[in-house]
């Protein structure tokens, strides 16, 4: 359904142990709300990303449930605590069953 879905994530390259860092994510996705109609008056079926999760070394940072009221190309910004070096895993779950993944490493000094 959704073509050319590209996740983009911004995570600082390094941080001090216990620091709180800001993470910004953006994923290109039409987020079809199910409210719009095409030129023939037929409702365009809903097709959105319904869930987003961020984990650090397997431990949850944030989970977000998205509804049709989230804008096209969902942007999500949040804070994370980094106790040690490791990897952030970002996952987006599409209505059509697709899963988009992205990961970022961070070095903690």
């Amino acid at each position, binding site marked *: 359904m959704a073509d050319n879905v590209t996740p983009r994530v911004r995570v600082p390259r390094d941080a001090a142990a216990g620091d*709180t*860092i*800001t993470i910004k994510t953006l994923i290109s996705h039409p987020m079809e*709300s199910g*409210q*719009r*109609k095409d030129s023939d008056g037929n409702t365009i079926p809903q097709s959105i990303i319904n869930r987003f999760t961020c*984990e*650090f070394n397997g*431990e*949850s*940072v*944030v*989970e*977000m*449930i*998205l*509804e*049709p*009221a*989230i*804008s*096209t190309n*969902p*942007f*999500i*910004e*949040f*804070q*994370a*605590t*980094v*106790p040690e070096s490791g990897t952030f895993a970002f996952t987006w779950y599409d209505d059509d069953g697709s899963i988009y993944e992205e990961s970022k490493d961070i070095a903690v000094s």
Partner: protein
Amino acid sequence: MSFSRRETILMALGAAAATTLPMQARAAIEDAIAAFTDGAEPTEGGITLTAPEIAENGNTVPIEVSAPGAAAITILAADNPTPDVATFNFGPLAGAQAASTRMRLAGTQDVIAIARMNDGSFVQASQEVKVTIGGCGG
């Protein structure tokens, strides 16, 4: 000034429609709040909702919520076709119980944020956002 029978009936119908329509919208938002709080009454304070006062384009309205000590925060838009907007569940590694995103608004309305605190209580904040162009298509 006198009204004919026809005018009187029309006015009565109009008044009835004007009172019932907003009530249906209210019911939807109250159901959405109750679904999140399990019927508990949220109190004011302890949560910050940052949204623009005037949003020119209802398709992308930047919004930020912050509630220190919250386990989850939900965002609702009272007059959208479906009031639910998003729910954040914060994990143990969340640096702050805060998040921002961009939402759609169908028109000028109240945006409501409700947080479930770690002790099980609920707090809420709301702000009116004026929308020049609605964001739900048509």
